[in-house]
């Protein structure tokens, strides 16, 4: 028996199944990547904690619904104060509260997005920083590029992994919040009033996925050590914001209204988001005096500079990723 097992060697068997190619070959890479990331407890915790946004916004929607019923009574006063603190809007002079539901919700979503950006920073760094860097470190690219995978397919798959988690940080909580708000408000009118918001949420979420995903992938493709990519991602997100804050203190507002006021990616993103949500115009269309909602609005500078900066950064990131991956794919056999 021992002799038999010692001499036994399995023979090679040919396989006659179907092997397919096509643009969808990015899916196995993306699903395997998402599964791999979700194995990490910290990432799972960060993803789960985005439910806090849903709970928080749900609470605010419930509060608005409650105040709507108290309008005109003395009991509403403390609630006005609380809303002034949370939304930076003075609602005490509003008589027809439900007519302002849409603009109030828009304000809530813009505030939420500001907080969610922090989660985008965390999840983007945790998930995206290693996506290409780890493949470079493990010299995995010859495996990818000896199979029917192109650099574009590879990049698309890697982007999908980080985009999925960025969606969980912003897009998904916001859509769930909207659903929750509609359920609290009840009635068909709240659906029709707030339907446009779903589109704005979708656009702002997609913008985060494209911008954050491409930037973090570009940084990940620059190094084989994910820690460097993570530090670079944090630096790109935090340092310009700090610099813009400092410059805003020392430079006159007209200077900050130009390019100098658009060096922070998160600041630019918020300005574009506010424009997407049409917050300024929506409040100006109300009967409220402008000082009642001025604090809720961002800087009143043209959105073209921030939009151009975001577009430029996204295009540059895509170009950089592509160049790096194509370069590695071409030297894959020599790695």
């Amino acid at each position, binding site marked *: 028996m021992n002799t038999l097992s010692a001499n036994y060697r399995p023979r*090679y068997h040919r396989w*006659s199944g179907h092997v397919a190619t096509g643009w969808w070959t990015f899916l*196995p890479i993306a699903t395997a990547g998402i599964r791999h990331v979700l194995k990490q407890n910290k990432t799972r915790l960060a993803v789960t904690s985005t439910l806090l946004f849903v709970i928080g916004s749900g609470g605010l929607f419930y509060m608005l619904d409650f105040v709507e019923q108290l309008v005109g009574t003395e009991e509403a006063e403390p609630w006005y104060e609380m809303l002034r603190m949370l939304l930076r809007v003075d609602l005490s002079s509003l008589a027809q509260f439900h007519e302002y539901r849409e603009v109030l919700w828009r304000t809530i979503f813009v505030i939420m997005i500001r907080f969610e950006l922090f989660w985008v920073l965390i999840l983007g760094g945790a998930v995206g920083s290693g996506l290409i860097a780890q493949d470079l470190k493990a010299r995995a690219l010859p495996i990818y590029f*000896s199979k029917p995978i192109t650099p574009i397919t590879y990049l698309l798959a890697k982007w999908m992994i980080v985009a999925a988690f960025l969606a969980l940080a912003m897009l998904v909580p916001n859509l769930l919040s909207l659903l929750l708000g509609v359920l609290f408000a009840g009635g068909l009118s709240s659906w029709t009033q707030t339907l446009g918001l779903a589109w704005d949420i979708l656009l702002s979420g997609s913008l985060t996925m494209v911008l954050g995903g491409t930037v973090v992938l570009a940084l990940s493709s620059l190094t084989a050590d994910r820690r460097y990519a993570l530090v670079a991602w944090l630096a790109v997100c935090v340092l310009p914001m700090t610099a813009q804050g400092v410059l805003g203190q020392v430079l006159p507002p007209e200077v900050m209204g130009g390019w100098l006021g658009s060096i922070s990616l998160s600041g630019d993103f918020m300005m574009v988001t506010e424009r997407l949500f049409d917050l300024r115009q929506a409040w100006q269309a109300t009967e409220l005096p402008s000082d009642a909602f001025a604090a809720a609005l961002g800087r009143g500078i043209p959105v073209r500079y921030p939009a151009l900066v975001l577009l430029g950064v996204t295009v540059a990131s895509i170009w950089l990723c592509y160049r790096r991956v194509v370069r590695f794919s071409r030297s894959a056999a020599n790695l």
Partner: protein
Amino acid sequence: MGDASYMFTCDRLRKCYARVTALKEVTVAIERGTVGLLGPNGAGKSTLISVLLGQTPATAGRATVLGFDVRRRQLRIRQRIGFMPETDCFIPGLSGTGYVYYAGRLAGMRHADAMQRAHEVLDYVELGDARYRPVEEYSTGMRQRVKLAQALVHDPEVLFLDEPTNGMDPHGREVMLGLIADLHAAGISVLLSSHLLPDVERVCASVMIMGAGEVLTTGRLADLGRPHPTLYTLEYAGNGADLPGALQTAGVGVLGAPVSDNSGRVSIALELPAAGRQSLVLEAAQLAGVRVRGLHPQRSSLEETFLAAIRKQQQP
């Protein structure tokens, strides 16, 4: 579409990197089978493989693999080719099974097919229960075998193996060479890039020798060993006690003692004083009273062929 009966063809294929020309007008047609790709460092072997896989675009010329143009049909080619890179290249965090399964999915296999096939090829390369361990924990031999498994998972028609026995112990090397020979028997063509000439001699039917970006020699191993001009083997029958003395008297060098086989045939290695002087041996044999059964020129080994090709290229 080119001729699918060839493993690959190159027509004036050139590849330049900045100031370095890695491939110089390479023109070659290699038939299917087991082919050894030999050459010193910097000969252009890896660049050729990279171009054939469609990873690196050629600067000029044309190449086909299994009849498909490498510029236009690179994905189709990669579906039919398995590539085993020289260096360790693993997807972080995967077990042996996960790694081979993932390679199958990348090749375009369905989930169930990829999983079933992963187990089949891991059985074939004899990874046993180690398949469930992370690949990072594998020994060198196991890493080489799991790399072979990922190249085999989609059952390619051709395997490109880059130094498959690199860093392996003698037993591991034996196993790997056995697998390669078995794959050839199963109908898979193999391009074996290696520095180890004994490995190539052991499993390859033909070789392609490259040097400084050029193809120096191609052909079947059996035909490549050139007849030596002065080194011969004399086969004879009868009492050859006086033969060595007669040969030396005739000016023929005797290299070692006579060796006899079971049939009573005796052979002895000789060195002629000059090319074309075989008659000296025949005369000496007649004088010694032995019956000559054969006088064959010795053929040069692969190593000698390889070195001769490199030397010839280096000559001004």
